[in-house]
């Protein structure tokens, strides 16, 4: 039965806020045990306190390859396997190239690309193993962006570059893992309320100008839940979700 998440283990990166936090909550709500991964232990502890024995906290920086590998091993040791991996951790800095700080570009590549690669690499053998178990499938869902499909506006160059890279990786992985029944999917959100968009002012701006210009983290969490609760024959490979009034 792929439709329920009872008895499954899900790993969520970037679980300390926004889409990651909402996704962890939603997966736990469907019965999954959720491994919460992020750097900010206090935030994870607070969420875990809310979710009780459905959640376990793993303080880790997704750009640290040794730490990520150790963390995945610990997840498997403590929770018994990995059925679902949600790559959510992300970083965005929307500054035109001419004015941009190179360190910001580097952070985007580190978190958005390397973070996904390291986490996925460490989880893959466990996902393949889980797909041979009673559930009969395993899932990798990566939170990309509309910017993974096209460069929608000036200032988003490197962010879009990292998300395009993630999309290419996800598609390659999908082709490779189809025969092993590991479903590989992307969710590509438009503007969502998050620390990133609150900090940049984009969320407030959208709320000021549009009635339906901003999504909530729960909308994306719901898309992830939809994907991982399909019958085992059904792989949602891509879901592009914008606020109703977002044109780009």
């Amino acid at each position: 039965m792929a439709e329920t998440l009872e008895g499954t283990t899900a790993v969520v990166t970037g679980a300390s806020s926004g889409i990651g936090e909402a996704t962890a909550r939603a997966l736990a709500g469907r019965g999954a045990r959720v491994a919460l991964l992020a750097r900010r232990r206090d935030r994870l502890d607070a969420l875990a306190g809310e979710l009780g024995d459905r959640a376990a906290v793993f303080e880790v920086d997704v750009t640290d390859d040794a730490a990520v590998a150790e963390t995945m091993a610990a997840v498997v040791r403590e929770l018994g396997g990995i059925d679902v991996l949600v790559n959510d951790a992300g970083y965005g800095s929307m500054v035109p190239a001419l004015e941009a700080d190179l360190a910001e570009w580097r952070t985007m590549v580190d978190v958005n690309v390397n973070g996904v690669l390291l986490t996925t690499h460490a989880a893959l053998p466990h996902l393949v193993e889980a797909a041979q178990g009673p559930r009969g499938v395993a899932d990798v869902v990566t939170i990309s962006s509309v910017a993974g499909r096209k460069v929608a506006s000036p200032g988003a160059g490197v962010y879009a570059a990292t998300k395009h890279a993630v999309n290419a990786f996800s598609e390659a992985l999908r082709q490779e893992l189809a025969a092993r029944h590991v479903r590989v999917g992307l969710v590509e959100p438009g503007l969502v309320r998050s620390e990133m968009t609150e900090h940049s002012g984009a969320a407030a701006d959208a709320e000021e100008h549009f009635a339906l210009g901003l999504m909530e983290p729960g909308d994306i969490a719901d898309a992830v839940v939809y994907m991982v609760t399909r019958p085992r024959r059904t792989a949602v490979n891509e879901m592009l979700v914008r606020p109703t009034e977002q044109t780009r």
Partner: protein
Amino acid sequence: MTGRLDSTTAIVTGASSGIGAATARALAAEGAAVALFARRRDRLEDLARELDGASVHEVDVSDADAVRRAVDEVAQQRGGVDVLVNNAGYGSMDLARDADLAEWQKMVDVNLHGVLSTTHAALDHLARSARGSRGIADVVTVSSVAGRSVTGPGSNIYAATKHAVGAFSEALRQELAEQHVRVGLVEPGLVDTELTNTGDDNKPDASQASELGLLHADDIADAVVYVVTRPARAAVNEMLVRPTEQEN
């Protein structure tokens, strides 16, 4: 029982079989009054008997005048159109060198002109409904994986028509965002339908597919229901869904 689509009206083209019939059933189960469009009246009447509030409209989607009359009739009888599902489609997968030009023309007529005629006729009604109590309206077009990439030899004109539909849908989305008409595509891989199980040499063959190599029509109907039951702020613009084992 209250459905999430109570007191809405949905038009489904190609409702006589496969994904269209399954979608009509799924929308009706959520409370929508469904207007069934297709050429085969007997099939539509059988389906209408099963569903509360369904109406039968014998129409060929490649006949623009007939389509407009039927859409206007629905809007008049039901007081509007909240959801349009463009599903009617035709596929013929001959290699270009061996193909019959009439088959190519038929694909363009049904897959492209059909979507254009129906959408053109429904747009005013949808925009008006979006100003009503639901606050939004929906156009969902059932495209194909072949709308995203040319998936193999023989998918030539089928892929061309589905790419065209994808471009049209994206343009429409940009134009209608402000009016709160959500525009989405569902892009299925191999589905068990009349298109795939006729046993003809020039159709994709579902008969040899494994359990995880073939979607059911219900899986796509479910995706359509997911798209049209999101909160008003969340527009699922694209959902790409393959059977778990389908690589291309």
